[in-house]
């Protein structure tokens, strides 16, 4: 018996497809939603049906609580999976789902509420006896004297924040005023709440998080950790499990802290407790994300536990079996996120149409993609194209596999961060696992120069293709393929 007969996924892109796949495996009919920008999106085509929920702007579609719930009711869905981002950690949404008589796939609304406020979560962790990053535990005033006590450099953060928004680094007292205005403005615009707090900026530091999975009967499984220290703009680019930085003692200390935080709230479903780890191996609570994490697949690869399937099952009341409670970690997994971002221009989003799209395959490779060839990127949404994951016996084999997989990857039409990722797998600090959150700033920089040898190779390729296509007749301008001059080469080869 499937846990539900019909489930609506209140999200888009790769995570909507991830949930659709599990629905199909569980015998649940998946229903998707779409904005006007996503009529032809991949997640819409893979669902059994899709409901329009509004115009492209997220606030009017994927964040529109009423529209999403109306869609679920219209289609007779019994449950809603929010994915990550958008409404996934919104207690108001979770309450509205339950008020409509549907099941929300996630922790209880009160838990979303107490942990969604980052300041409240800091107080909560502190009360549970878990070390937090030194800083304020109440909202900053407009002229915050207490900052001098914390010391510089420090980070201003939005209490309602997440995903790196509303964050500002402050290096000295005279930068405080401007930074506070900027952080408040960004926080207000992004979350409708200008409350800001301060944390000392710890560096060098690693970002390590612990995956939790709980049922509605009080059982809590700790499914290992993920090291997410490679970030740009405080957003993760690469995640791996196990962390190459910790030993069993530190791991157990992190697990213990994670259990403590979860223990003070009413918890079930999947969540992640994030920590910073300094060079003295002290760890500090950062926040607890009460939803599926982008990088959950890394944990699935090493533990063999299907997190999305269990989120859905525990939401329907099923208890966690011993096999999940005592799941052990095997081998090493690494995920890299393929973003439509230009790593040669400070990782700014790139726009356009994907002209070529070839993903790697074979042993130990998993790809969760949200796009395909001929997809037009929608500037309204997150530029994540796909998650490329590898799994192997040990870390060294996983890095070798990742390099092989990246070499099989072909994406045309837009610059992606694949250029950075391919550099990364040959970087000494990544190969040894000794990197920290400063890797991109310290070793990559903002405008990584083009190696001369790559320029010289590009010249060969361009001259060779121009020569090969020289005799080609002019192609009609409506040809969709970017490499349209190649068409003649293809035709001649086909005739031979």
């Amino acid at each position, binding site marked *: 018996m499937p846990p539900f007969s019909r489930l609506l996924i209140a999200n888009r892109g790769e995570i909507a497809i991830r949930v659709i796949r599990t629905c199909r495996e569980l015998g649940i009919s998946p229903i998707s939603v779409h904005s006007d920008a996503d009529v032809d999106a991949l997640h819409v085509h893979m669902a059994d049906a899709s409901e329009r929920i509004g115009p492209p702007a997220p606030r009017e579609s994927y964040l529109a609580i009423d529209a999403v719930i109306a869609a679920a009711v219209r289609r007779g869905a019994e449950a809603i999976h929010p994915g990550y981002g958008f409404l996934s950690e919104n207690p108001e949404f979770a309450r509205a789902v339950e008020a409509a008589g549907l099941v929300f796939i996630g922790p209880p609304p009160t838990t979303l509420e107490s942990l969604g406020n980052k300041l409240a979560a800091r107080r909560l962790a502190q009360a549970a006896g878990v070390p937090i990053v030194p800083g304020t535990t109440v909202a900053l005033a407009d002229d915050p004297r207490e900052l001098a006590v914390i010391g510089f450099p420090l980070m201003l953060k939005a209490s309602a924040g997440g*995903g790196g*928004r509303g964050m500002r680094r402050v290096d000295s007292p005279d930068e405080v005023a401007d930074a506070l205005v900027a952080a408040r403005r*960004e926080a207000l*615009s*992004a979350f409708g709440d200008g409350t800001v707090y301060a944390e000392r900026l710890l560096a060098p530091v690693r970002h390590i998080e612990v995956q939790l999975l709980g049922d509605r009967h009080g059982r809590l499984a700790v499914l290992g950790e993920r090291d997410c220290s490679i970030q740009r*703009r405080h957003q993760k680019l690469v995640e791996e499990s196990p962390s190459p930085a910790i030993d069993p003692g530190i791991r157990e200390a992190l697990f213990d802290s994670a259990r403590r935080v979860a223990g003070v709230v009413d918890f079930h479903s999947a969540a992640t407790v994030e920590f910073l780890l300094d060079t003295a191996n002290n760890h500090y609570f950062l926040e607890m994300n009460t939803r599926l994490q982008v990088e959950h697949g890394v944990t699935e690869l090493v533990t063999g536990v299907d997190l999305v399937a269990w989120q859905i099952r525990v939401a329907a009341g099923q208890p966690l079996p011993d096999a999940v409670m005592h799941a052990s970690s095997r081998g090493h997994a690494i995920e890299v996120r393929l973003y439509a971002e230009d790593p*040669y221009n400070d990782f700014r*989003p*790139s*726009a356009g149409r994907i002209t*070529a799209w*070839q993903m790697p395959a074979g042993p130990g490779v998993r790809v969760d993609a949200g796009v395909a060839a001929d997809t037009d990127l929608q*500037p*309204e*949404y*997150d*530029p994540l194209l796909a998650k490329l994951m590898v799994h192997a016996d040990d870390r060294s084999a996983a890095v070798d596999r990742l390099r092989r997989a*990246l*070499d*099989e990857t*072909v*994406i*045309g039409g837009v*610059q*992606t*961060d*694949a*250029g*950075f*990722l*391919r*550099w990364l797998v040959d970087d000494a600090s990544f190969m040894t696992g000794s990197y920290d959150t400063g890797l991109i700033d310290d070793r990559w920089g903002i405008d990584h120069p*083009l190696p001369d*040898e*790559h*320029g*010289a*190779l*590009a*010249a*060969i*390729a*361009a*001259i*060779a*293709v*121009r*020569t*090969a*296509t020289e005799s080609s007749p002019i*192609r009609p301008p409506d040809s969709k*393929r*970017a*490499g*349209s*001059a*190649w*068409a003649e*080469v293809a035709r001649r*080869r086909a005739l031979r």
Partner: protein
Amino acid sequence: MSDLEARIDGESVTPAKGWRFEIIDPARGIGRLINGAASMPVLVEGKASDWVVTIRGRRIPVTVRSWREQVLAGAETATTARAGPAAVRATLPGLILTVAVSAGDPVDEGATLLTIEAMKMQNDVRAPRSGRVIEVSVQAGETVTTGTPLVRLE
């Protein structure tokens, strides 16, 4: 082939020695660079003189011109260089959040002209060089696409 010159970022580039290029999938523009034992997959997109070669994930724009085309292009570039005012354009689509300058304002190189929100991020648009603002073509709240002129500098 020796008639063709490749340029990257305006600089003439000498093709790498010892390597050759092999076409793999002409329908999608995929080939492979080969040098004895080593090889490297590459994607080549474009036509005529404008190509983009993707090597190890990096898109490298390469201009390939015959001598005749180079002479013609040289004349054109010279004309462009002499042109006066500079237009600052949007490099990504998004929503104008704030506009920091007005027509007539003097600005220094690197000064923030306006802020665009795109893909969840606030991006500052900065002055490419010092000068006086001639015209501001957009206002806060407006949505722009890539290439939209934002500000003109003297």
